[in-house]
């Protein structure tokens, strides 16, 4: 039985230590957060921005860094008419501060104590919590079989491209599929995640893998349904839906 997650407490001050562009729209923020109580791979946190007149806006973001990482990391995708993501991706700079609260969510988590195997299925920015899981898997030397199936639109939209290649190893695999790539240089898979691809990349239901699915709501619904149709027990499938904008906060990024 998993340990109960302590209730998230107060807002803590996060200071931007580094910003790392990942794609044209996504930026990873590396944060110093004194007092951060630690987290499990897959959890998220709330970000609160406050303007000088007291107006504040709040959004949830998956934690992109594994437990025990030197800095807390968030990867944010810019939504053009969003309220928070444009600030975090284009304005926030080293030294800037905002508030975070967490960790949040005891459902969509992976712990090394789980013997595996684990199928991670990501749509777009849904890959963020899986990066934390893969890095945690690597850092703890877990031998549970873990396979990430990551669907993105084009090569340029793949977040953590090189890092994912480096994370692959005897017990970790990454399969990319692109849905809108038209360039001739891409020799990898094309097309959406469907039952055939899930059956090929994952494990048969008798093995009882844990399946995690994360991304926009329509993607998650379709993949979860396909996994159930393949015979996986719903209890073995955990899902986290991002809004159509890719963030788990109120509609609009």
């Amino acid at each position, binding site marked *: *039985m998993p340990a109960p*997650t302590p209730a*998230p407490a107060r807002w803590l001050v996060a200071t931007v230590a580094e910003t790392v562009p990942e794609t044209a729209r996504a930026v990873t923020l590396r944060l110093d957060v004194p007092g951060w109580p630690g987290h499990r791979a897959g959890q998220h946190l709330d970000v609160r921005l406050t303007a000088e007149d007291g107006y504040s806006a709040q959004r949830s973001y998956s934690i992109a860094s594994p437990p025990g990482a030197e800095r807390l990391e968030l990867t944010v995708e810019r939504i053009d008419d969003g309220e928070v993501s444009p600030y975090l991706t284009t304005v926030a700079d080293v030294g800037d501060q905002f508030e975070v609260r967490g960790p*949040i969510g*005891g459902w*969509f988590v992976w712990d090394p104590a789980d013997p595996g195997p684990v199928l991670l299925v990501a749509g777009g920015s849904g890959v963020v919590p899986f990066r934390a899981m893969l890095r945690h898997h690597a850092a703890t030397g877990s031998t549970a079989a873990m396979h990430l199936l990551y669907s993105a639109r084009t090569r340029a939209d793949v977040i953590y491209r090189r890092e994912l290649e480096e994370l692959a190893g005897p017990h970790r695999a990454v399969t990319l599929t692109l849905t809108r790539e038209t360039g001739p240089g891409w020799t990898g898979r094309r097309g959406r995640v469907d039952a055939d691809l899930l059956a090929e990349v994952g494990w048969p239901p008798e093995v009882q893998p844990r399946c995690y699915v994360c991304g926009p709501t329509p993607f998650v619904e379709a993949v979860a349904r396909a996994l159930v149709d393949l015979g996986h027990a719903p209890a073995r499938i*955990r899902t986290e*839906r991002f809004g159509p904008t890719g963030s*788990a906060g109120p509609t609009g990024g």
Partner: protein
Amino acid sequence: MDTPTPLDGNAAAGALGELFAFDITAAVATCAACRDPRPVAELRAWLDAPGLVLRCASCDAAEVRLVRAGDRAWLDLRGIQALEIGLPAGP
């Protein structure tokens, strides 16, 4: 404009976490209307209403309603027949 699409109970974990001493999103809620059992994390979350509503993924009945004022919150769980909460195995 697109129809608002719901998130899931994971997105409500922050707001609910302010009220509960345990992580409610992992608890299994049985819908009072149709008896569908499901972790709260898998309920459909409507967050931008005047309050937070979690609905049954099977029949859309409202299982959880949360209203937050500045210094008070109201919680209606009538839509949940029973909540199964995992506890750490103890002596």
